[in-house]
């Protein structure tokens, strides 16, 4: 019996050390990403200082962009959303609204408010989708196209949009996304800088608490709502040092579904969005990346650090939990679908570094963190682990993370400094400290739940409740 107890206690201690080493490794890697993002940000800021975009705005050679805006039962908000999209400052723009079998008055509202007339057009159905019922063009807005189709989900609606789009580039966006007036001008830059770019993503910020008028951010503020406030810090960290850092290392494989710009031909050739996954945005990007290696075709995924779009984040634990659970299920599903890339030299940096990073750091992190916390609690209760070790564990797992987050806030402050008041700075720092006291542990639970559901084959989206802005904004929102 004593031998068994000894073995258990040794295993407990060893597992704690392993978890400690894991956190140390992860935080060290984050430090590398932070340094990489600092260098990338410096280069970017030097490039855009005193930049004039009139060349792009007035040139007949600028690439045409088609915005794909799926809408499902959005009768009450669609008018404001669409007016904001039509007012975007980009010279060659086409807006395609795809009503995904809306059961409310969405199509009628569009027809009445935007002077729509039914038209016929010739389009090539290169991707299988649910049937299109009717097609409309506006007599007052030549760049507006409205497609009414049978319900098939967001991916299906985007695929229909791809068939109708005439732009060289397509912009996929989400329901609760507010695009900055010059957001498209900023996002299109990487396509002009290099020929092998197939997709670009930009920094998405949290809109909760900010002042919004006519679909535009008038004053960016940090919310006092705890749950949303912590997400402000989370988003800053994810975009400003996560994706920007990876951008310099050539390892970007995520473009937010909330706002991304793609080369249309590449997406269509890849087969469009997949229907049977909840992580369709990441899946598409990883597929584009994978195909670029397999077919020796262009496959650069670029990231633009400029804040180009704003999104509404959940303010209720229930909805946030569903969202994070879905995100993690999506991640697991996408990594499983493309598991062939794991540690496969054929897929270069993506296969050898990026993919394993997503598996060990993003996917399995909640498992390891939960195991670490559980064994720590057991060890402390049984007296096998002393308080010093517990303190070291917390300092390594959470303390270092908080310090890195604080440096991300500096990165935002020295670059775009959109949160400009001392109140906002104080709040940002406060939420960065609070993140580790309960919120992070909740996300561990939600992500574990997502993994569990993935293993049981669940592919439902759950309902995303939106509080809405002062003025109606984003379009999309499909079932």
């Amino acid at each position, binding site marked *: 019996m004593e031998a068994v107890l000894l073995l258990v206690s040794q295993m407990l*201690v060893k597992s704690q050390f392993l978890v400690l080493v894991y956190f140390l490794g992860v935080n060290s890697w984050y430090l590398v990403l932070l340094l990489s993002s600092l260098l990338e940000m410096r280069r970017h800021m*030097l*490039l855009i*200082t*005193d*930049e*004039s975009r*009139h*060349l792009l705005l007035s*040139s*007949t*050679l600028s690439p045409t962009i088609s915005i794909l805006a799926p809408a499902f039962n959005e009768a009450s908000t669609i008018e404001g959303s669409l007016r904001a999209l039509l007012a975007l400052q980009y010279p060659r723009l086409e807006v395609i609204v795809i009503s995904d079998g809306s059961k409310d008055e969405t199509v009628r509202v569009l027809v009445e408010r935007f002077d729509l007339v039914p*038209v*016929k*057009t*010739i389009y*090539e159905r290169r991707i299988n989708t649910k049937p299109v019922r009717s097609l409309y*063009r506006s007599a007052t807005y030549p760049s507006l196209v409205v497609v009414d189709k049978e319900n098939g989900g967001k991916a299906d609606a985007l695929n229909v949009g791809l068939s109708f789009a005439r732009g060289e580039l397509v912009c996929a966006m989400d329901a609760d996304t507010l695009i900055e007036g010059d957001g498209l001008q900023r996002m299109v830059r990487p*396509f*002009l*800088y*290099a*020929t092998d770019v197939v997709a670009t993503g930009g920094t998405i910020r949290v809109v909760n608490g900010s002042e919004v008028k006519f679909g535009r951010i008038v004053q960016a503020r940090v919310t006092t709502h705890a749950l949303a406030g912590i997400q402000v810090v989370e988003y800053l960290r994810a975009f400003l040092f996560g994706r920007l850092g990876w951008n310099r290392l050539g390892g970007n494989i995520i473009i937010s579904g909330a706002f991304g710009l793609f080369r249309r031909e590449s997406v269509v050739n890849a087969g469009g969005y997949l229907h049977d996954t909840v992580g369709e945005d990441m899946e598409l990007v990883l597929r584009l990346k994978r195909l670029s290696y397999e077919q020796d075709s262009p496959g650069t995924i670029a990231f633009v650090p400029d804040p180009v779009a704003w999104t509404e984040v959940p303010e209720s634990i229930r909805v946030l939990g569903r969202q994070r659970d879905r995100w993690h299920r999506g991640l697991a599903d996408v990594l499983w679908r493309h598991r062939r890339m794991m540690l496969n030299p054929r897929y270069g940096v993506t296969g050898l570094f990026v993919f394993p990073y997503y598996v060990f750091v993003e996917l399995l992190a909640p498992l390891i963190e939960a195991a670490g916390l559980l064994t720590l609690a057991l060890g402390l209760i049984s007296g096998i*682990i*002393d308080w*010093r*070790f517990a*303190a*070291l564990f917390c*300092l*390594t797992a959470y*303390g*270092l993370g*908080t*310090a890195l987050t*604080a*440096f991300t*806030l*500096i990165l935002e*402050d*020295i670059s775009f*400094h959109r949160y*400009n008041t*001392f109140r906002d*700075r104080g709040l940002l*720092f406060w939420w960065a400290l609070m993140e580790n006291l309960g919120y992070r542990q909740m996300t561990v639970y939600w992500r574990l739940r997502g993994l569990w559901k993935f293993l049981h084959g669940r592919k439902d989206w759950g309902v995303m409740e939106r509080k809405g802005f002062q003025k109606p904004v984003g379009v999309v929102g499909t079932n």
Partner: protein
Amino acid sequence: MVNRNLLDLVMVVEIALLALAVGVFFAHGVWLFVTQKQFLRDVTVARESLNRLLTRGTINLEDIDTLRQVPRDAQVTAFLEASRNLTGAGKERLRFVAGEVSLLDRARKLCVSGLWTRRLRGARVLARMDVADPLIETLLADPNPAVRAQAAEWAATHPAPSVISIMLTMLADPATQARFAVQDALLRMGATAADPLASFLETHSGLPAESGLRVAESLAEPRFLPAALRHSASEEVGVRTAAANLLGAIGGPAAAERLVALLKDPDSLVRAAAAHGLGRMQHWPAAAQLAECLRDSAWRVRRDAGLALRAIGAPGALFLRRALKGNDPFAADMSQQVLDLPAAAAG
């Protein structure tokens, strides 16, 4: 289990890191607060002085002195803002004032810096102020693509033969950003660039020819015809497609004859471009050949042939109706779709 010293060390390091981050974060906030307020004040002063200098008939030395005393960043901001809205005599006056306050000299110094970021900054100021300076011409050969692109933007308003000649060689620039800026600048030069571009196209092939043909298509001048005919026989698909597009834009019997021949090209992109070009020219004698293309294996060719037949008018419509009753279901389907189109959508 854990050495006390190790724990203390980790704790001290983390507290130091956190304190450093917080200190920098808030100190930067204070610095921003102070400098931004001051910057706004400086820009306002600069704007007011500049406004007086630009709108009054005489140059007031007091205003020049005021502008000289304003910090450089605020000075640059005010001048660049003003440059957007000025042309002709107004811009000339702005350049004079910029020269008086040494803004242009500083920009010139930046242009010869060893750091590309400084050269870019200098080129931006000189380009936005429309300064005719050979120094910026040398930046067309800069090793950094962003600087080359900025110099090309400047070149659009300074179409000297030497500049055009360099710009044409840059049509083969490996950096997309620079190539885009060069194409755009050549387009903005308009007729001035047409002759050199035509000569260039007659002697070049590959990527530079493809980029040049795109510019030529937008200019659509008959002098590009010989080059377009030559490139329509190129071995590269991109070049043949661009040549077909140019032929469609130029028009005329020789172009039409070549486009009809291109309807049999092995590549569908070229066939589609040829069909589109014939429709653009409304070349009705080619209706029968276009009707043949309604049976093409590529959807894109069938669509462009159908739309071209519709654009041709009555003779084309006749072929479309005939295809409706033909034995090829794809041709019949495309004809039906084209005939169903409303007038506005047929273009």
